């Protein structure tokens, strides 16, 4: 296990560096003077010259990369053109919403996806399975923003049960009850992902059910429910647990659309708005943060997976 952890860490570092080079090159791929791009339209020639000297834009590209990487490692991702604030602080202000939204979405995915998947697998081949499987596929075929708009129309506009947009921080008035702002967005974001989990739980439970140890358990006369829970479900859960991790990592960027529909002040909407405002330092910073987070979460999932299923680290 230790050897596997070390091995995985060593493969992570080159991938991280390569990804950081791509993120660094992003600003250089935009036509124009990078200093002028980073400072926006209102910058004076003096400011542009100053930033050019600071970032070494007149020096070879690889030196620029190391200067940039040095800044990044010290937490300096540049200054937002639009907000006139450090990029890290801008990203940080969206973190609460994004993390809460992703967590709440995971909650729904587990609460809805897991039981339906188990039901679908245990009733394999019956009409229950057909309805749940097709329903899951239908949910995965919906554009999330479309679903979100209809949820707003039904539950906010018509019934008035939940607020339709925005999210005040948990530290504002209302405290924990402010989470009601995230109920509709998290359900919207959960729908297609829960559908994938349903399909995955079903597939991996059916896989495990074909294995010899399950046949043995049945042959020695165990109660079918006990076989399903202890022998099939628990083993199937290993693959599903890994999928949960990957889903969580992907949610941060998948939330882009949902956050836009519900006007949530999260990182996802920040990306879109920054693209529309041409706020390149923020775009670059968000990409870097999301990619690093994504890779670290994926690494942790892999390690957890190897721990749950020791065969993985032996391969």
């Amino acid at each position, binding site marked *: 296990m230790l050897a596997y952890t070390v091995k995985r860490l060593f493969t992570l570092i080159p991938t991280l560096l390569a990804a950081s080079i791509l993120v660094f090159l992003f600003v250089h791929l935009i036509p124009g003077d990078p200093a002028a791009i980073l400072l926006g339209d209102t910058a004076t020639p003096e400011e542009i010259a100053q930033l050019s000297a600071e970032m070494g834009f007149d020096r070879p590209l690889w030196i620029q990369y190391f200067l940039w990487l040095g800044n990044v490692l010290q937490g300096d991702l540049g200054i937002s053109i639009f907000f006139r604030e450090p990029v890290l602080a801008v990203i940080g202000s969206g973190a609460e919403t994004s993390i809460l939204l992703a967590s709440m979405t995971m909650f729904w995915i587990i609460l809805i996806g897991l039981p339906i998947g188990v039901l679908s697998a245990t009733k394999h081949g019956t009409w229950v399975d057909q309805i749940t499987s097709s329903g899951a596929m239908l949910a995965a075929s919906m554009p999330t923003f479309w679903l979100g708009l209809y949820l707003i129309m039904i539950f906010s506009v018509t019934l008035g049960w939940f607020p339709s947009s925005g999210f005040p921080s948990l530290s504002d008035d209302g405290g924990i009850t402010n989470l009601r702002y995230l109920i509709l967005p998290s359900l919207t974001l959960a729908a297609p992902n829960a559908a994938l989990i349903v399909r995955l739980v079903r597939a991996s439970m059916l896989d495990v059910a074909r294995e010899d140890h399950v046949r043995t358990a049945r042959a020695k006369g165990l109660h079918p429910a006990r076989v399903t829970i202890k022998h099939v479900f628990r083993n199937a859960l290993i693959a599903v647990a890994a999928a949960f991790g990957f889903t969580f990592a992907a949610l941060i960027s998948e939330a882009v659309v949902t956050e836009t529909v519900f006007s949530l002040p999260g990182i996802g909407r920040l990306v879109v708005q920054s*693209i*529309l405002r041409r706020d390149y330092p923020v775009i670059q910073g968000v990409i870097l943060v999301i990619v690093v987070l994504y890779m670290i979460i994926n690494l942790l999932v892999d390690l957890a997976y190897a721990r749950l299923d020791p065969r993985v680290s032996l391969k």
Partner: protein
Amino acid sequence: MNTLIFLRDAFAGRKLATAGFLWLCLIVVAAIIAPLVAPFDPLEIDPVGRLTEPGWPNLFGTDHFGRDTFSRAIYGARMTVIIGVGSVLVALFCGGLIGMISAYFTRLGHFLMRAVDVLMAFPALLMALVLITLLERSVVNTVLVIGIVYATTTARILFGMTLKLKGETFIDAAVCSGAGNSSILFRHILPNLLSPLLVQASFIFAFAQLQAAALDFLGLGLPPEVPSWGNMLSEERIYITRAPWLLIYPGMLIVVSVFSMNLVGDALRDSIDPRFKDDIAGV
């Protein structure tokens, strides 16, 4: 011929998947003959007849510019087909080539697959957004961006499959009989990959629709004047309470088409060569 038999077997006894397949055929036909069947010009603005309810002669009603929603929906089928087929071609060509070459030429492959790993570190939608930032809004760029995003997963999958095929006896036989590299790759390996490629294509087609609609919604996809189902939803979303039909029809068209494509993909996957079962994830 083998592919035809494969198709026939895949749909045998699957009513829902067959219905899905027929729906997709209908979309393709509508896309081709759009100018003949659309009752109005999809771009014609009529300030007087704004937001009229579905009825005659505007079957699906009109939008906030007074444009006929039914005609726009029919022309939208064109964009669906262009985006779907285009992204599939880009993804399969780039991804397939990288995957096959990487598996066949091990040394080059090691380098190429590491590069694919790096690109896969970018979540799909984020990568699409990054690429879109660098390009202008146009149909070609949308196709390119979505195609490139799915090229990475395709490369991974084809890499695994080619690696498996490479170990088969018939490849050894081809090597012994003096076949060259390109002959082995394209005449012996590629034909064996056609049915799994078809499965992959159907899933990419489905995902491409959702990605394109999401990009349209964010204002970063097709140019706003292009009548696509995603653009129709995006433009008319503020009229959801006043003119709900403007969102129901294009939305349902997207859902039914993506659902159909997923059903077709599932049916194809279930009848695929068992050797490749584990490789195709469908996600």
